[in-house]
């Protein structure tokens, strides 16, 4: 088996080096080889990994050091499935016996819990890399399972050629870290990344027939990857899947990608995307053992640039989706991606023609972004541009404004927009959903405007405090200003496509806001909402004004839920009793699955005879255990 594996690697390598003259044949080959790797990769990895496995995870086959080539989805993480009839030779650990191990832990648990346990046991071992490894194990299980079902789904998401994918929201070359065992063998490889909707695809080059990999970004969290040795590295973390590591060659690039990916990660509402059980959250073909020093294809100026619009012409005043784009664009046209080395001149920053230099310091993490408070108008300040004329307004870019619109400032207009015009444009919007006192509003924006003109730093604090200083639970006007603030806040946090901060000085304005909200027992939208325990309890208990009726209603509710629980138990019992072909094995399984109920039944049935002082009526011993679920003494019939 190891020989086969090497063979796969060999075929890949020449492909890589022939990148400059890549044609469809090569990609076909890779097509094939990718699929074949499915078959072959399992075994050698198992023997390689076996040495390492001393925990009970050892039962799972090892995983290839590069990512699995199957899409996995957290909901699909299934108990281990044997890949073939028997274990490969040479596995030092005992396999069949340990089959018992997952079983009794599964009793009563969900599948997911079991997976988590394995994952967490992996974390204990080493450091970050092992965390990824443990997820590999989890993913491997699904991998095998999916394979038995038919591998169409696995690569199908990736079977989109680079050209067919078209222009995404963001494209460019990024380094991606190949997973390698251990900390010291980090390998980075450069891929052409395309961010489309909320999925990130990457190709080894732009003419690829099939994406090398893809991940579906919602549920991922984008963060700076300090643990990486590369300077400008960031990662996409997922609680159940491994983390993906990316790196750029300069700070601006990294920020840009982090922004875009972060936006994509949160940019969609959950009910849109999330629980499709066989959704491919990510998929990646196996990486080869090529280190990152491959030469990139030079196809012309534009594809090489990280481009949003694939137009090489850069104009700082032309519309861009992001404030930074201008800078980047101009810089990228001078970028030469021909060398795949890391040491890229930092000149790009200086090749700007426009005066828009960002004042960002180091990249703030996503968490920072979320926690950063907003202005009282709900705006996020982006970096401000000192060079740009302050004439007529701020040099800052205005983030999404509230007022109920997600994208009030279309990207095209944002860049040079002054606050003045923006405010004017949006005032009517704001008045719409929230008919506030006009004077107050007008007063505030003017104040804000002045502030915005003032400095680069986000004057949020002061402003926020100013707005909140008048915040009391009582006064309606203050509440209104809260309303004013808060909806924008809401909208901003959800629709923050364009907002970015570069400044670190923000403190807990947002926290304060929410605290005051809570004090006032208001929801984020200004409605009255219970926020203390008593209030919650009261609201639950009180269904009508008459206390007597209230009690009765409460009783009815309690009885109903008890009835429902009992009916559920009854259904469980009927599973066994109604089965005409019941075997002892089935019964045993049922018993393990429903231990508590079984114990209660046993208790109940043997209670009156064995333990006379068990309980008064017949009903009560049954009632209390079932409701309380205290017993967990398992009995097995042999």
């Amino acid at each position, binding site marked *: 088996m190891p020989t086969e594996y090497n063979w796969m690697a060999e075929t890949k390598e020449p492909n890589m080096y022939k990148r400059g003259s890549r044609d469809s044949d090569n990609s076909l080959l890779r097509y094939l080889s990718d699929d074949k790797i499915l078959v072959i990769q399992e075994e050698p990895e198992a023997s390689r990994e076996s040495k390492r496995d001393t925990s009970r995870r050892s039962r799972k086959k090892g995983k290839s050091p590069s990512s699995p080539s199957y899409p996995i989805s957290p909901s699909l993480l299934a108990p281990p499935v044997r890949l073939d009839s028997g274990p490969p030779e040479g596995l030092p650990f005992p396999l069949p016996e340990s089959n*018992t191990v997952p*079983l*009794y832990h599964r009793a009563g648990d969900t599948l997911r819990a079991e997976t988590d346990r394995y994952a967490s046991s992996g974390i204990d071992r080493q450091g970050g890399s092992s965390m990824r490894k443990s997820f590999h194990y989890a993913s491997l299980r699904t991998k095998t399972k999916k394979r038995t079902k038919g591998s169409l789904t696995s690569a199908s998401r990736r079977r989109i050629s680079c050209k067919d994918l078209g222009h995404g929201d963001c494209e460019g070359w990024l380094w991606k870290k190949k997973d390698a065992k251990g900390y010291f063998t980090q390998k980075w490889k450069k891929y052409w990344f395309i961010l489309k909707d909320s999925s990130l695809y990457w190709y080894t080059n732009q003419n690829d027939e099939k994406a090398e990999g893809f991940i579906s970004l919602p549920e991922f969290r984008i963060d700076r990857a300090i643990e990486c040795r590369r300077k400008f590295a960031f990662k996409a973390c997922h609680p159940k899947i491994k983390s993906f590591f990316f790196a750029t060659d300069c700070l601006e690039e990294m920020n840009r990608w982090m922004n875009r990916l972060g936006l994509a990660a949160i940019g969609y509402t959950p009910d849109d995307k999330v629980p499709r059980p066989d959704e491919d959250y990510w998929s990646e073909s196996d990486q080869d053992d090529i280190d990152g020093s491959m030469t990139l294809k030079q196809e012309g100026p534009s594809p090489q640039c990280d481009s949003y619009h694939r137009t090489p012409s850069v104009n700082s005043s032309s519309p861009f989706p992001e404030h930074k784009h201008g800078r980047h664009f101009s810089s990228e046209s001078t970028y030469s991606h021909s060398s795949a080395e890391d040491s890229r001149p930092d000149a790009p920053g200086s090749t700007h023609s426009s005066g828009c230099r960002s004042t960002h310091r180091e990249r703030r993490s996503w968490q920072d972004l979320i926690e950063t408070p907003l202005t009282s108008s709900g705006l996020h300040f982006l970096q401000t541009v000192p060079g740009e004329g302050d004439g007529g307004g701020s040099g800052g870019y205005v983030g999404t404004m509230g007022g109920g619109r997600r994208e009030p400032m279309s990207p095209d207009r944002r860049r040079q927009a002054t606050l003045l015009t923006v405010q004017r444009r949006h005032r009517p919007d704001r008045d719409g959903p929230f008919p506030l006192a006009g004077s107050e509003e007008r007063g505030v924006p003017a104040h804000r405007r002045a502030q915005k003109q003032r400095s680069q730093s986000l004057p949020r604090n002061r402003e926020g405090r100013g707005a909140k200083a008048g915040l009391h639970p009582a006064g309606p006007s203050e509440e209104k200003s809260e309303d004013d603030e808060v909806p924008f806040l809401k909208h901003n946090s959800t629709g923050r496509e364009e907002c970015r901060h570069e400044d670190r000085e923000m403190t807990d304005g947002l926290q304060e806001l929410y605290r005051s909200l809570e004090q006032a027992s208001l929801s984020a939208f200004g409605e009255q909402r219970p926020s203390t325990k008593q209030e919650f309890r009261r609201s639950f208990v009180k269904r009508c004004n008459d206390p007597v009726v209230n009690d009765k209603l409460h009783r009815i509710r309690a009885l109903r839920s008890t009835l429902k629980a009992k009916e559920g138990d009854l259904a469980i019992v009927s599973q066994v009793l109604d089965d005409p072909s019941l*075997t*002892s*094995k089935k019964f045993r399984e049922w018993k393990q699955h429903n231990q508590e109920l079984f114990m209660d039944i046993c208790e109940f049935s043997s209670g009156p005879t064995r333990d006379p002082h068990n309980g008064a009526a017949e009903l009560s011993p049954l009632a209390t255990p079932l409701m309380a679920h205290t*017993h*967990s*003494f*398992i*009995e*097995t*019939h*042999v």
Partner: protein
Amino acid sequence: MSYIPGQPVTAVVQRIEIHKLRQGDNLILGFSIGGGIDQDPGQNPFSEDKTDKGIYVTRVTKGGPAEVAGLMMGDKIMQVNGWDMTMVTHDQARKRLTKKNEDVVRLLVTRKSLEDAVRQSMMQ
């Protein structure tokens, strides 16, 4: 059945030989076990020492092979066919009892009444 930490466990045991009964596809012994190192010992109604994680017989089906052989409810199983049962998980215990290729299991069980009887006879 007293357990002194650090000392080997000593107990008065009875040998019980159970001949499994074939019921369709299964070989049954006719009793139920509880306990195990992975179980909660406090829930065991039969153990004297509530930290004892041994395997106990929780019920014996009437007329079954176990009853015929003399197994009683509340017995603690020390060995099965030579395999130790004092430090096993619940499922391991089950497996050792339900091996399909074995028709007979020889258990070493202990119970309080045995110990009392022996002590009594020694005292006399």
